[in-house]
Structures are given as structure tokens and as C-alpha cells.
């Protein structure tokens, strides 16, 4: 075929028109797609039940609430420590020092982040955040209330919570490892050692409620306590869980991982500024998480005064449990890390088992007790 220049020239406008149309369709396609996505999102977010789910996940028993409680918990701990030690605790910022934590956080965040030369830089930056996330995630399984004011209810939530919590010392060990300091390394290994000591007694202690309730979900366990709290049936398990929880968090009597007079600050030695803030918050978040678990497992969860909403009952019991956390953690000398393992395995584990066995026997031979439980009487 011969090339006809003029035909070619006449075809150019068509060609340009085609390109323009192509671009127009492309843009419109993307636009309608995005519009569709937005519409879908809009519909799903503001559909009443989804909106309320988001509200719960982000606001009330969710993230914001937990973070605010965290800030309150730090203040409460410091104030209580102060009172126990004949001091006043924080006083200057705000009423009774209530804003102290914000001031501290602003100061810490504004500080320079020092990353040691020996540290593995990216892991060093990444781990503190990961730690806080790992600790905050299990809060979504806490049964703040039986109906509506909870976030998620899984049939295996108890196991899942422990799975998350086992990751904490791994993060601590890694943090000690990547900091590139000898003190951090020792601290990291001690954190792992603590978890090794405390994990088994803690899980055995929580087996008691799980068996009595016949459920592995925190919600199911809490619901099983409507007629009798498990603290009545499993008092020793409550004590062992508390002690094992303290050991697992690594606060005072079991604070070998962060023993300040021995290894400066353990695996947190090299963290500064925002990284330190995150690890510091993670420690308190873990304490809070364990307090909430104790309330859910042993103290009846939202069961309590009938004229109060369930969540309020839960929070009251939560505060009392947290108070005991602080009380126990402020009254003993620190144990050496081999002694931690020794005590946890030699005393806590048999005691926890003993109580489970006693409770089982009681169910079998005392039909009145079994009738109180969802298992039902004979």
C-alpha cells in the first residue's frame, strides 16, 4: 500500500480524539472506582452496626480508652509509690500532678534519639513500637461488658492473649540483642528467663477458670461467673496468677530484667526519647492487661453490683486489682534470676495445680458447687 500523506494528515485529529477519549475513560474509571470505594466505605462505616463497632474499637473500650487508662495507670502507680514511701508523688503539673505524665511524655518525645553505633539501626527503631502494639492488641479480647461494650469475642481468646504475651519477652530479648550493649544483652536474656519461669505457672493458673467455665474464651469464662466468682473456688490460683503475672511483666520483686542497681536498665538501657517512652508505656500496658485478665478470669468480669453498668463494675474491679499489683510490687526485695525460676517452678506451679485439682474434686463430690457452674449439677 502506498503511503498517502494527506490521508494520514486528515487522520490526526481522530487519533488525538481517540487518545483524549482513552485518557478520559481512564480518569473516569479511576474516579468511579474511587467513588465506589468511598461509597462502600461510607456505607460500611456509617451503617449503624459498623459505625458502632469502629466506635468501640477506637473510642470506648478500644484504643483511646486504653491509652487514657494507661496514662492514668502511670500516674496512679507513681502516686501510690509515693504514698507508700512517705512521699507525695507528682504534684506540680495539674491537680494532684495529674498532668505529670503528659509533661513527661512531651519532654521525652522532644529529646534527642540516640542510637548507639553498635546497634542494628532499623530493628532498634522498630522494636519499641512493635512491643507496644503487641501489648495493646490483646485488649480487644477483654470482656468489658457482656453485651455490646466489648470489641471481639473469640472462642479461643484466652489462648490468643497468651500467644501475644509470649511475644513480649522475645521482643525484649531482641531489643537487648540489637542495642549492642552488654548490659542490654544481659537484660534481654534475663527477660527471656523471666518469661520462661512465669509462663507455665500462669497458664496453669488460668487453666482452672477455663476448665470450670468449660470455655476458652474470656467472654465465656466471665459469663460462667454470674452465680459464683472463680476467686471463691480458686483462691490460690488467683494468688499464683498475680505473682506469675508480676514475674512475667518484670516489675519490682521480679525485676531482674531491668534491675537498675545491677544492669542499669536491662534491655532498655540504650533506649532514649520516644523509644524509651514506648517501652515504658508497654510495661504499664502489660500490667494493666494482666489486671484486666485477673478480673475477667477470677473476679467475675462485669458481674458485680447489679444497678451499675457492667463496664463500670469491671473498671472498679480493675482499679482494685491494679492497686494490689502496685502494692505487691513495692514491698519486696528483688530476686535473683535463678531464684525466680526456682520459686516459680517449685512453689507456684504445684500450688496452681493443687488448686485446680481441689476445685475438680469439690465439683465431683459437692453437687451444690457444681450446680453454680455452667457445667450443671449431676
Amino acid at each position, binding site marked *: 500500500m502506498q503511503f498517502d500523506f494527506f490521508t494520514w494528515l486528515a487522520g490526526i485529529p481522530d487519533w488525538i480524539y481517540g487518545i483524549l477519549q482513552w485518557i478520559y475513560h481512564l480518569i473516569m474509571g479511576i474516579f468511579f472506582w474511587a467513588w465506589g470505594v468511598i461509597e462502600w466505605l461510607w456505607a460500611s462505616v456509617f451503617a449503624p452496626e459498623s459505625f458502632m463497632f469502629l466506635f468501640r474499637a477506637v473510642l470506648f473500650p478500644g484504643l483511646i480508652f486504653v491509652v487514657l487508662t494507661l496514662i492514668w495507670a502511670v500516674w496512679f502507680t507513681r502516686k*501510690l509509690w*509515693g*504514698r*507508700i*514511701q*512517705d*512521699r*507525695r508523688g507528682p*504534684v506540680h503539673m495539674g491537680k494532684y500532678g495529674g498532668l505529670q505524665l503528659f509533661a513527661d511524655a512531651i519532654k521525652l518525645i522532644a529529646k534527642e534519639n540516640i542510637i548507639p553505633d553498635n546497634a542494628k539501626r532499623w530493628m532498634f527503631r522498630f522494636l519499641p513500637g512493635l512491643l507496644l502494639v503487641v501489648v495493646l492488641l490483646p485488649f480487644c479480647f477483654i470482656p468489658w461488658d457482656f453485651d455490646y461494650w466489648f470489641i471481639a469475642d473469640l472462642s479461643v481468646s484466652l489462648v490468643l492473649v497468651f500467644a501475644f504475651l509470649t511475644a513480649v519477652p522475645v521482643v525484649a530479648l531482641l531489643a537487648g540483642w540489637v542495642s549492642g550493649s552488654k548490659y542490654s544483652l544481659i537484660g534481654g536474656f534475663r527477660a527471656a528467663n523471666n518469661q520462661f519461669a512465669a509462663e507455665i505457672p500462669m497458664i496453669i493458673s488460668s487453666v482452672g477458670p477455663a476448665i470450670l467455665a468449660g470455655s476458652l474464651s474470656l467472654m465465656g469464662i466471665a459469663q460462667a461467673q454470674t452465680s459464683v466468682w472463680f476467686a471463691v473456688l480458686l483462691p490460690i490460683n488467683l494468688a499464683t496468677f498475680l505473682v506469675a503475672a508480676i514475674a512475667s511483666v518484670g516489675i519490682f520483686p521480679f525485676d531482674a530484667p531491668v534491675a537498675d542497681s545491677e544492669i542499669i536498665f536491662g534491655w532498655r538501657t540504650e533506649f532514649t526519647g520516644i523509644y524509651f517512652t514506648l517501652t515504658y508505656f508497654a510495661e504499664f500496658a502489660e500490667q494493666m492487661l494482666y489486671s484486666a485478665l485477673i478480673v475477667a478470669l477470677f473476679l467475675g468480669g462485669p458481674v458485680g453490683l447489679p444497678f451499675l453498668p457492667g463496664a463500670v463494675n469491671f473498671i472498679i474491679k480493675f482499679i482494685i486489682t491494679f492497686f494490689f499489683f502496685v*502494692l*505487691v510490687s*513495692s*514491698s*519486696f526485695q528483688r530476686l535473683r534470676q535463678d531464684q525466680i525460676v526456682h520459686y516459680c517452678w517449685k512453689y507456684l506451679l504445684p500450688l496452681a495445680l493443687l488448686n485446680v485439682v481441689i476445685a475438680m474434686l469439690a465439683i465431683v463430690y459437692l453437687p451444690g458447687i457444681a450446680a453454680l457452674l455452667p457445667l450443671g449439677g449431676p
Partner: protein
Amino acid sequence: MGFFSVLGDIYQILKHTFRQVFMRPFTYFFPFEDRIYPERTRGRHIHVRKNCTACAQCVRACPVVAIRIDKEDKMYEKDAALYFDYTRCIFCGLCVEACRFDALFHTPVVDLSEGDRDDLVYGPDKITTLDRDPLEWRGRRFR
């Protein structure tokens, strides 16, 4: 030590800790509350120029050479101006002891902090009087 006596000891400790929570704290709310300092408190000095005889005994007694004397600066018949350097002074009280003319005393004022180092050298205008600018912090006045 039996298992139960250990439990008893733990209970004792926890009981005391628990009681302590509801006790009045021992410390005080410092800038807003302050205690009464005893008479003998060795705080900053006050120099009574009327009694001073410019004998320079205080300057000789000072172990850290915190006092400088200016004999030219006369206000009365035979007195001298003293400059106290509170960056050096260790509040030992030897100068007050050395002064036999009742011209130099300690006062119970102990909060001497200043923003500027040079302000801690108390010249004759500051050392002869207890008046000073009040410190303002968050809308309240101290001193």
C-alpha cells in the same frame, strides 16, 4: 523457716505497706510550703557595716577564699565593703566565728539559686540587706 511462717512474714510486710498508703506523706510541697529553719542555720551571710572595723579577720579565716574585702569603699568611719562569692563559699561558719565585732552573721536564707553565675557574687549592696527580688513562678510569689 516453714512455708506458712514465710506466708506470715509476707503478710506482715504487705500489711505495713497497705497501711502506709493512707498515711500522711512526710515530705512537703516545697515551693509552696517551707519549714522553719533553726536559728543557727548557716545560710547566706549578712554584713552589718556599722560594726565592721575592716580588720579582715573574716577574709583570713575563710578556707576557700570566698570573701574579698575592699577597704576603700567606706560608708561609715572605718568599715569596709565585703564581696561574698557564693560559688565558692562552703558555709563553714569560720568567718562568722572570726569576726569579733558582731559585724558578720549567718542568716537562715538558704535558697540562693540564681540564673546567672555572676549574680552569686554578693556585693556590698546585696550582702548588707536581706531584701531581694521575689521569685515568681506560675503566678505565685516565693521568698
